[in-house]
Every structure is written in C-alpha cells, then in structure tokens.
C-alpha cells in the first residue's frame, strides 16, 4: 500500500499540473455555470449535465487515459526496473490518473453549484448521485484505457479502439437496445431491458439518474416496473453493486495484463 501511495503521489503531481486536466476542470466549470445561469432551476441544470457527464467523461477518460499510458511507456519501464512490485506500480499509476480526473470533474461541477447555492435536499441528493456516477465512469473508463494501451502495442490501434469503445457504450449500444425492443415488442421486455442496462455502465448511470429526475414519467407503464425494481432496496443494491463492479472490472483486467506483460 505504501508503494502504491508513493507512486501515486508523483503520478498525481504530474497529472495535476498538466494543462489538459486544467482544461477538463474548466470545461465542467463553464458548462455547469452556464446551465445554472440559463436553465433557471438547478434541477434542469442537473438534467443538462447528465448528458454531458454521460458523453464527456467516458470519452475523456478512455481517450486521454490511453494516450497517457502510451506516453508514460518509458517512464513505466524505468519504474518497473526499480525494486517495486508490479501490482503496486499499477495501482499507483492507475489511481494517479483516475483520482485527478475524478477530482477535476467533481470540482468542475461542484464549485459552480456551491457558488450559485442550492437549498433543496432533493437536488442535493441528485447532485451527489450525478457526482458519484461521474466518478464511477471515470474509474471504469480509465481502467479501459489502461487495459487497451497495455494490450495493443500500436498507438493508433489503441486510440481507435478507445474511441470505438466510447462510441459503442455511449451511443450504439442504446440503438441496439431500441432495435431489440422493437423486434421483440410482443414479449415482456421490462426485465430483459433492465438486465441490458446493467451490462453497460453508461446506461446504468443514466438509469440511476432517471430514477431521481424523471420519477413522474417512470411511474407510468414500464417505468412502474423499473421503479418497482429499483425502488426496492434489493434492486437498488444490485444496481449500485453493478455500477461499482463496472468501476472495478476494467482496472482489474488491466492489472492482470500489467502483471504478465512483457515490456
């Protein structure tokens, strides 16, 4: 653990000083502030932010993450030649990137909210959920970035794969779900669809936010079964568990790869 913290400390101080992290944070500050200013109610701001979070966080985490790992290749080798274990080294490198990305996002969204002030406890809970989902997606897609960059030696291929994964998880997957829904419209689809949502962290995060933002709509039709599923503590626990699993699985896969890789 000590070694992880030591590696992380330096990785962190490198990433924190980088211009793109500053830009990333500023991006969220500007978007959040803009939404708070122009959409009036902060519930609408959270709504607008949801789409930004679901698109931008996976994109930045996976694309910048992949680039970062490629760029740190020689440095990683230097560290590997030091008397420290691979697992600890990976932990330090991964957390050293995922944590500043998460903090950049959380600060970028949190600061404008704090400045504008928000009083409604419901909105506070919604904001907390949004921040939680953003952090989980950051950890998940940073893990994907590490796994990709460690598996694919070719930088261009790695980057292409990163963008492909982003496109699939944020856009195409839902198109496929819509298509499946239309094809099997005669069957009871509620449960299978909930299962399909669990299989994609972006969708899972979105659905958890819907449960707070669109309760009225979700109480009708399918939503009722959705609400009754997530409304029970068991269903909610399953959803949050699945989301946390999504935060953990990609980095664990990357760690496995890191442990065996020939540099």
């Amino acid at each position, binding site marked *: 653990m000590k070694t992880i913290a030591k590696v992380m400390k330096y990785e962190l101080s490198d990433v924190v000083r*980088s211009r793109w992290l500053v830009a990333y944070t500023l991006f969220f500050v500007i978007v959040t502030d803009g939404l708070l200013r122009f959409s009036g109610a902060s519930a609408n701001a959270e709504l607008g932010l949801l789409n930004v979070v679901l698109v931008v966080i996976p994109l930045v985490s996976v694309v910048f993450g992949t680039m970062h790992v490629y760029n740190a290749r020689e440095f990683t080798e230097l560290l590997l*030649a030091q008397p420290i274990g691979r697992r600890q080294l990976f932990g330090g490198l991964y957390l050293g990137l995922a944590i500043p990305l998460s903090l950049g996002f959380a600060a970028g969204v949190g600061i404008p909210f704090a400045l504008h002030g928000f009083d409604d406890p419901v909105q506070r809970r919604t904001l907390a959920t949004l921040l939680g989902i953003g952090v989980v997606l950051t950890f998940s897609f940073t893990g994907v970035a590490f796994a990709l960059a460690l598996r694919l030696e070719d930088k261009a291929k790695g980057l292409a794969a990163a963008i492909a994964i982003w496109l699939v998880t944020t856009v195409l997957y839902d198109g496929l779900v819509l298509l499946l829904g239309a094809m099997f419209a005669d069957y009871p689809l509620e449960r299978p669809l909930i299962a399909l949502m669990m299989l994609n962290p972006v969708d899972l995060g979105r659905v958890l936010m819907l449960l707070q933002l669109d309760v009225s709509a979700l109480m009708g039709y399918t939503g009722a079964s959705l609400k009754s599923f997530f409304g029970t503590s068991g269903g909610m626990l399953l959803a949050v568990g699945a989301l946390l699993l999504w935060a953990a699985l990609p980095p664990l896969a990357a760690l496995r790869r890191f442990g065996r890789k020939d540099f």
Partner: protein
Amino acid sequence: MIVIDPILRIDGLTKRFGTLPVLQHVSVAIARGRVTAILGPNGAGKTTLIKILLGLTRRDGGLIELDGQPLGDDPSARAAIGYMPQIARFPENLTGAELVEMLVDLRGPGATLDRDLIDRFRLGGDLTKPLRTLSGGTRQKVNAVLAFLFTPTLLVLDEPTAGLDPVASGVLKDKIREERERGKTLILTSHVMSELEELADDIVLLLDGRVRFAGPLRDLTARTKQISLERAVAQLMREATDAGSEAA
C-alpha cells in the same frame, strides 16, 4: 569462457514472442568488476536480454543468478541493479529533483546516494524545471544521474551516450571507468563500436538469439585477427551467415 565468481550467471535463457524465438538457450556469465558490452545486430535479442534481467520482460525458461542468488519475481532483488534506459522520457510536469526524490522514496532510505554526476553535468539549476522544458540532451543527463544514484553493484546502461554532447559524453565515460575502478560491474550496449572498444573489458555477441561470442575483448580481436572491434564483429557475423548457408 570460464568466469570465476561471476556477478551474473545466465543459464539456458529462452524467450519467444508468440512463435518467434528471441532468445535460444542463452548461457553467459558476466564477470564481476568489469565492463561487459552486449553486442548484436537489430533483432539479435540484446534488448530482450536486458529487459529480462531488469524484470521488464518475463522469461520462458532458464536461470539467472545475481551474486549467487536466483533472480525471480521478487522485486527487491532489483535494488542492486541500476538502469539507464535508452530513451529518456519522463512525466512532463515533474522536475528532475522530484524524479530523484521519487526514486529515493521508492527505494527507501537505506540507499547511499551518489549525486556526483549532478555536479559534473552542471545540472543543478535544471533540476528544478519541469522536464518538458528540458532539451533531449539534458533529459539524458537526468537519466544518467538516476542510474548512478543508488550506487548499485550492477549497472545496466542502454546506449548511454546517445543524445549527449561530446563534453557530457566524456563525463559519462569517465564516470563509467571510475565506477569500474571502484569494483562495480557494468553492462552496456551501444552502436558506437569505438566507444565500446574504449570502455569494454568483455564482449557478449548475440546473433539470432544465440551467444556467438562471450569473452574478453582482446580475445575477440585476437581470434578474428582484426584490428578493431567493428571489424571483428563484422567477421563473426559473416562467419555465422556462411555457417548458416552451409547448414541449409
């Protein structure tokens, strides 16, 4: 070649990348307190050999003993090894001083530090600047500093003078000789044969993943009856090609 009490003994080392054999039963002993140059054309397995030594790459088979102790997965064994990679690319926003501090942190407080090169390279001021603002040559100096920092018993230098100006190059070569005088063992690779001739005591020549020659430099020149290392190596490679075509 028989080396008595070698610091590093490599026995039957094998490595494949997929179906491609890179190292085929490489057995060699590195003599203590000497400078050994590992030579070979591109793809001969030099880099792989070094990376296995450093734990960057996993071996498929064979044995490596450092100071009589088998070198396994235990990372602590690497405390005795210093490494200067060929390409000096560091996190852009850290300073050289932070990099030094980090390695000290990672290696623990037990290490005795050798900051000698910092002064000799006149690096002082540059160490407080972010690494991205430094020139390639200056970064290579930082790279060298890091390798010598922990007074390791075995130093692995991959193309150490590449990218250094003549003055810095001279400083580094002096440092290599001094370390040898102090009883340190150094392993280095280089494309500059004259430089190796100047520095190396022993030569290990790799061709197609096999050891073609291992022994003192003078033995090599004597055996090939060539006046320079470059010519001697060329001669050995020719012989190998001829042998290969005869066998075929």
